[in-house]
């Protein structure tokens, strides 16, 4: 009987001790994992922040370089071509040849202006985002079969600072280029409005439709999309893509509480 009691006691105490140990392990796992996850998230956030900063620096350097190249083209080659034109006028050449050379120089000048303008649109600096977008839509209508419309909202004139104007213009430029290249669209509509204090810039088309997943937006291959996201983040905005039914895409760029900026 005494032996039986001893076994019972050992059994009870042993089982209780083992259960306590198991519970301790489970609680430890739950708490420690939570801390570990928080730390891991913090590290991921830091890594993302560093990546974003790097991307911003790359964009900034690219813009600077493009501006320099645009100026070089405009001031250097543009002036050289003008000087060449003047020299040719003074030369004793057959009038037909003079005319031919003049036509060629004009064509080269136009190309230089176009390239310079694409690198850094002077209209953006001189007249602001709305004029630049209007010019962009006009250029697309002229160069492609796409009917690109920009619905100008005069109430939004001089709403953005220089950095935001450049970022938004570059994003629209990239999105429109993508539509021309891949969407097989015949119409593009660019529109701006203020909805409940938030600035919304939308680009819609009637093409094949495109809605990238979150992973596609962050994966290394889609540099264009990453650039777009990064530029939008730079101005404190968000971007969303929506495939329309039956066809087309709507891209919304939203900057919250814009009037407070």
């Amino acid at each position, binding site marked *: 009987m005494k032996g*039986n009691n001893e*076994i*019972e006691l*050992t*059994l*009870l105490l*042993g*089982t209780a001790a*083992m*259960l306590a*140990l*198991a*519970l301790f*392990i*489970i609680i430890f*796992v*739950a708490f*420690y*994992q*939570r801390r*570990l*996850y928080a*730390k*891991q998230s913090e590290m991921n956030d830091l890594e993302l922040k560093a990546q974003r900063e790097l991307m911003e620096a790359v964009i900034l350097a690219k813009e600077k370089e493009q501006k320099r190249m645009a100026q070089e083209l405009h001031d250097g080659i543009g002036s050289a071509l003008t000087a060449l034109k003047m020299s040719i006028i003074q030369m004793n050449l057959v009038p037909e040849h003079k005319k031919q050379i003049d036509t060629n120089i004009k064509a080269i000048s136009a190309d230089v202006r176009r390239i310079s303008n694409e690198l850094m649109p002077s209209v953006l600096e001189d007249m602001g985002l709305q004029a630049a977008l209007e010019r962009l839509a006009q250029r697309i209508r002229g160069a492609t079969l796409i009917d690109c419309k920009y619905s100008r909202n005069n109430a939004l004139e001089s709403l953005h600072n220089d950095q935001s104007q450049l970022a938004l213009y570059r994003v629209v430029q990239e999105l429109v280029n993508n539509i021309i290249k891949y969407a097989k669209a015949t119409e593009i509509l660019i529109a701006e409005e203020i909805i409940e204090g938030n600035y919304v810039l939308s680009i819609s088309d009637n093409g094949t439709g495109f809605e990238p997943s979150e992973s596609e937006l962050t994966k290394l291959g889609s540099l264009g999309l990453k650039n777009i996201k990064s530029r939008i983040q730079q101005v404190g905005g968000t971007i969303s893509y929506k495939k329309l039914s039956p066809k087309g895409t709507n891209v919304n760029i939203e900057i919250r509480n814009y009037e407070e900026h």
Partner: protein
Amino acid sequence: MLTNISSFSILLPTIAVFLTIWKQPKTLKKLSVFVLITAVLEATASFYVAHSINNMFLFHIYSYIEVIGIAWIYWNLIKGRLKIVIITLVTIFLLFSIINIINWETLLEFNANQRYVGGMVITIFTLLYFSQIFIDAKIQRIESDHYFWFSSILLIYTAGTLFLFILGKQVHTEDNHMYWDLHNVLNVLLNIGFALTLWMGTKKSN
């Protein structure tokens, strides 16, 4: 009374299997197979008891199914090199079981040694899963991870039954009720845990 509750508690995960079977991911399908085999064994064991026939060989069979079945489930949950540990432990368990039958516990005796070793093996599986949770650090809310609950309940069961199986021989021969009461309570908990895992797992994958 408690024995009956324990025997019938297998119905909980069995019902959960049938309610969730169409929505189950691969790993939960494995758990379902394990639950259904256990239910059949439980029913057979109850039938043998009702007819006063020695059902100890069913405990031996259950031990193999328990360890191999749970190893089969953890094979999906544990990644990389840690899988070698699963193979090694199952091999050790099978070798020990054969030696145990030949030398110490025949098919007609209670397999306390085999269940003790099986329990240790399952404990290591659960600890491997916990260590993997730490390595991955991907789960945001651990309380919503059904495999965390699955592993926790298995750990509680194996920890709780460890002393039962160490002292199994002595207690069993002396026909001690407390032994079976403790085991029955832990068995009910285990079955509730299995049902919860199936329910949570399919709810999450919806």
